[in-house]
């Protein structure tokens, strides 16, 4: 009888490159803001980033900033400031922590990147409501604060099938963004530049998909927790060459791991699917817990959500419209269930974990009985943990750990 020491994390070599890429992204934005050399567009995570880049904007993603607030465990310091101006503690904690940080004049960027003192102010904000309504409210607050335009795409929700009518409607809205964006950027729209950007985005997306698919190997060379970090370029730099180069590098490292028989989790004997948002402030603790349980969280809806297989430079607007609309989050439960079933099969999953994030119902798929339905249909256990993406006051670590340990005991029979 002995108490096992905590196994060590295996850091990917690519992490260093990742850091450099992220740093140059933020320094480039900071410099542009200081010199006024480029116009800056703030964009929602699955907003029309390709269109913005093709018009010469540098693109900043508030959701990425909010995730940083979560990961650095600062979110809870800022949320009350947004609550105080009328944004409820019950709504998106990305929104409340990000607006709160702005009110308090702080950003984790200044700690991570010496010399940067503020987030780069926007010249325009562009959202897509494909994920939820919160992004629109969030961006509109900034629009009032910075007195800059806020434009957007109103998406469809709860679709089982994405039809040509849906795609045509979104495509029209995307095209309608061109005149105002042209005016703000001072750059004429050039369809060939858009095609090039879409091609880079497509390559990034394909490579990111291949990166994630390496986890189908048993044992998996990467975990969901690695994924949440290494997805950075797919989020903030899609449509650029540097994101493509990064994923070529990362993919090579993971393939090498597979060849050398290196497992992300030693003695992996249980494979889990993570459904829902990450709990940003607890990534490390949860990763350590699963390492100890010899369990690999091999795949997730969250990381998969940045694979846009539909992007096609030959058909820029239609394909962007389809890619932004075929997202998991916009779909009906039946469609989501079919998707998860495919993932369970492909990744040979032993159990599904649902994170019910209190302030993000759109990313919480345990609210309408899905875990129970999937348990019945697939015969593999499911578990729900209650928490939040950013508001750690809504997460009880003790309870979650007991629940997860019991879940793994259940899976392992």
């Amino acid at each position, binding site marked *: 009888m002995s*108490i096992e020491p905590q196994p060590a994390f295996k850091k990917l070599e690519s992490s260093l490159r990742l850091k450099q890429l992220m740093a140059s992204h933020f320094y480039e934005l900071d410099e542009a803001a200081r010199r006024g050399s480029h116009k800056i567009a703030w964009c929602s995570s699955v907003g029309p980033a390709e269109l913005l880049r093709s018009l010469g904007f540098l693109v900043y993603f508030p959701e990425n900033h909010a995730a940083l607030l979560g990961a650095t465990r600062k979110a809870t310091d800022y949320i009350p400031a947004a609550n105080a101006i009328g944004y409820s503690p019950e709504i998106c904690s990305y929104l409340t922590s990000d607006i709160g940080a702005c009110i308090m004049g702080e950003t984790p960027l200044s700690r991570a990147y010496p010399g940067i003192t503020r987030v780069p102010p926007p010249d325009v904000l562009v959202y897509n409501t494909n994920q939820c309504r919160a992004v629109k409210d969030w961006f509109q607050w900034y629009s009032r604060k910075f007195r800059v335009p806020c434009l957007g795409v109103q998406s469809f929700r709860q679709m089982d099938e994405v039809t040509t009518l849906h795609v045509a409607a979104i495509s029209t809205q995307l095209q309608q963004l061109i005149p105002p964006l042209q005016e703000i950027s001072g750059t004429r729209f050039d369809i060939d530049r858009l095609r090039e950007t879409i091609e880079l985005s497509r390559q990034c997306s394909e490579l990111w998909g291949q990166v994630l698919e390496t986890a189908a190997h048993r044992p998996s060379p990467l975990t969901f927790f690695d994924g949440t970090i290494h997805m950075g370029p797919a989020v903030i730099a899609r449509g650029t060459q540097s994101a493509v180069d990064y994923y070529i590098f990362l993919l090579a490292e993971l393939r090498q791991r597979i060849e050398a028989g290196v497992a992300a989790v030693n003695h992996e004997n249980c494979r889990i699917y993570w459904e829902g948002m990450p709990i940003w402030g607890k990534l490390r603790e949860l990763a350590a817990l699963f390492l100890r349980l010899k369990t690999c969280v091999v795949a997730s809806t969250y990381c998969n959500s940045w694979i846009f297989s539909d992007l096609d430079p030959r058909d820029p607007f239609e394909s962007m419209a389809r890619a932004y609309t075929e997202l998991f989050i916009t779909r009906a439960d039946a469609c989501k269930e079919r998707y998860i079933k495919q993932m369970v099969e492909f990744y040979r999953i032993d159990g599904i974990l649902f994170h019910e994030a209190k302030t993000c119902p759109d990313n919480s798929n345990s609210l309408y009985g899905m875990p129970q339905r999937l348990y019945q249909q697939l015969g593999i*256990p499911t578990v729900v943990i*209650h928490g939040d993406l950013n508001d750690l006051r809504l997460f*009880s670590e003790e309870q979650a750990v007991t629940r997860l340990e*019991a879940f793994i*005991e*259940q899976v392992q029979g």
Partner: protein
Amino acid sequence: MSELYLGIDLGASATKAVLLDSRRQIVARTVVATGLDFTRVGQEVLEAVLRQAGADMEHIRCAVATGYGRKNVHFPCLSKTEISCHGRGAYHYFPEAITVVDIGGQDTKIIRLGPDGRLLDFQMNRKCAAGTGAFLEEMARRLDLSLSELEQLAGQSQQDVKLGSYCTVFTFTEILALSRRGIAVPDLVKAIFNAIVQRVTELGVLSGKIVATGGVVAYNPTVANLLANRIGVDPLIPPEPQLIGALGAALFAFEEAEHA
């Protein structure tokens, strides 16, 4: 002295220990209040059961800890969650397909076991003390009554009163309002017990053979009776329901040693 198998259940309110001999008979047991120091209380119950059994540490062939403080014991010990341990302990007395309802100090669980004792699934209360022993303790404290007085008073209740609040703090505000309206204390106390039962039945569907375990059931048979009224079947109650988690842990210790 034969070899012994230890199970310790370090719960949020009480710490329980059970010592089994090589025929899986209980040779010692204890229950103490947990307090703040899990390590100390773990040591305390260890010494208590060893004393009862007239044994030494060397006699313990294997030990398993469970409960909130399961990682805090400072002697060689495996750990297993209270879900598995309560299931294992209940299955010991009722070896068939059962659903275990455990109402503990800080959490309430529903654990479904297959006919072979395998854990099929489980539900736990959300991050809130509603429906747990902590809720009951808080109500007792506010009413300035002991837990056994609550039990006695509930027996004298003449009518059913419903409490609508979920939150412990608001429940007490509601109780104050009802008391001002002249509702008798026994009726209020029964309403409190009923609120616990309500929370339990909200957690998951209770069907088939139900086994009730945990400290609340051990000290407050009223809860088991009210549960029976609600679900239409009498729950089975094992001997010493509060010790079921520790017993399950001790049984796991036994099995672990057998497989080693």
